[in-house]
């Protein structure tokens, strides 16, 4: 699981080693990556919202 | 071999198309769902002063006498309704937590019955969530007979959580006609009279 999260996070930043990417695409389950991606996107939204609320005081 | 592959492709294409169509239908429905969602969102955040148009229970909390807030009332007329609308009181000063009652006068200056609606708005928008209205003429559509004069109350309080930097709250009511209801159904008139009685 942690591997999947790490890969998706790397994708968010747009950096990924070629070997790691090949590994992901060979054995990784695409559904796991998509779900993790959506969850992390939601986390990102929450994070931005949190920062905004904190900044607004 | 080639045959099989094309068949497989056809199955795949069909599956993709159905999924896409389902997504489309979902997004179209979502667009309409955004309308009520937006209202909920507005209520929670108080965007552009859009306010709750249902009665809220007044809360009997301790009046915060350490601060006084000015509440202004402004009335405006949209086009197409021969009514005069005025706030009896232009502004009041009160403490958060205190309940206040002000009256608004409505006069139908034409010789025909008509329906109108006062659309409320609050400024600053940060105060919107903290205005609690127990009774307001803006909750429902109003009907006035030819030449009728009506005084309607607004009962409200500001809650104690009103942000401390807010010193003035402005309540604006814009009066609009209700299209296609200039000739009311008899039943409507009776219900209304029933309510008043």
């Amino acid at each position, binding site marked *: 699981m942690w591997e999947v999260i790490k890969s998706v996070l790397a994708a968010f*930043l*747009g*950096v*990924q*080693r*070629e070997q790691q990417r090949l590994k992901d695409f060979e054995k990784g389950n695409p559904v796991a990556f998509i779900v993790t991606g959506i969850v992390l996107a939601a986390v990102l939204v929450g994070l931005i919202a949190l920062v905004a609320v904190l*900044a*607004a*005081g | 071999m080639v045959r099989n592959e094309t068949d497989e492709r056809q199955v795949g294409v069909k599956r993709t198309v159905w999924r896409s169509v389902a997504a489309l239908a979902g997004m179209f429905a979502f667009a309409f769902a955004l309308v009520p969602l937006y209202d909920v969102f507005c209520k929670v955040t108080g965007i*552009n*002063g*859009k306010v709750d148009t249902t009665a809220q229970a007044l809360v009997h909390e301790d009046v915060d006498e350490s601060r006084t807030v*000015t509440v*202004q009332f*402004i009335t*405006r*007329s*949209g*086009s*197409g*309704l*021969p009514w*005069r609308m005025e706030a009896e009181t*232009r*502004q009041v000063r009160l403490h958060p937590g205190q309940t206040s009652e002000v009256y608004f006068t409505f*006069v139908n*200056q*034409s010789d025909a019955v008509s329906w109108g609606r006062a*659309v409320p*708005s*609050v*400024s*600053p*928008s*940060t*105060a919107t969530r903290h205005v609690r209205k127990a009774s307001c003429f803006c909750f429902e559509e109003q009907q006035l007979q030819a*030449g009728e004069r009506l005084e309607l109350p607004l009962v409200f309080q500001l809650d104690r959580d009103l*942000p401390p*930097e*807010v*010193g*003035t709250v*402005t309540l*604006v009511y*814009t009066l*609009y*006609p209700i*299209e296609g209801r200039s000739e009311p159904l008899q039943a409507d008139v009776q219900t209304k009279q029933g309510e008043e009685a």
Partner: protein
Amino acid sequence: MRTLLVWLAGVLALVGSSQVALARGWNMPVGVSSLSGEIYGLHMTIFWICVVIGVVVFGAMFYSLFRYRHSKGAKSANFHENTTVEIIWTAIPLLILIGMAVPATATLQKIYDPSDADLDVMVTGQQWRWRYEYLGEDVSFNSNLATPRAQINGEEERGEHYLLEVDDPLVLPINRKVRFLFTSDDVMHAWWVPDLAVKQDSIPGFVNENWVRIEEPGIYRGQCAELCGVDHGFMPIVVHAVEEEEFDSWLAERKEAAAEEAMGVDREWGMDELMERGEGVFGSICASCHQAEGQGAPPAFPALAGNQQLIEDADWHIDTVLNGVSGTAMPAFRNTLNPVELASVITYTRNAWGNETGDVIQPSDIAEQLEE
């Protein structure tokens, strides 16, 4: 090779133009309000950050284009990824962005300050003019474009403040916090004066809020900044910022004038004076839609000249002007014109351009109808 020189010249021109951009008239004004200078500072900071990033990125790009020309026999290398470099050029922009977000947030918080103001002004957008009401002071007026149509059509020489001049400017005191409440009678408008760094949409049925504390007396000009129909380009804003005492006496004067005007309602008015007054009101309020000769612009704006319903039914005419017609561009004028103006403009439209009804509508009749 020549290609590259032209490109380089382009980059130099860009840097050069950024210098020019500091000159007044090419850049955002520093402004005269307590916050406008801060907003200008923010703007310039981001601008220079962008210039620096641009120089680095475009520099690297043009260097590569120049240095690794195929025509000079360059052989291409064979690398196509480098995780370290990629992490660095993701992280650095992120840091720069955070650096930008901090001051931007601070300024935004200052803009969103709902604390009490010394003066409340309600600003209403209407096709195509602004209306100002000094809340609690009984002073309100319309502010129309003052540039003559002849200048717009090129029949007259254009003045210095072409399209940025009004008949009745908004007068505000300096050094006092002025709170604006924005709303609209019809479509969306946006009230914008660059020197005050205030731009806010005015939305029908809702109020928006903003504020300003002007620090220097002067005349500041702006325009409507939201497409609002045919004359969107012709509803300017002029603000006269004056010393506090001057403002107080101006306000007292306006109150007195309003009271005097109200007194005039009761007397009997003659046809000629109503026609004269009415022509002026028609020109500034009605002519933008119904046109100078009452010929209208159908289908949106009906003709008034020779309009049978108008000629035959005075009550309908008065009702239309007072209450407007919902679902059209015809607003209710009951609250925005006074009884004298209403009576005179109705009398004028009933007797001008061949509408010879001979009707004289008295201000007192209108006042009575309004106060019923």
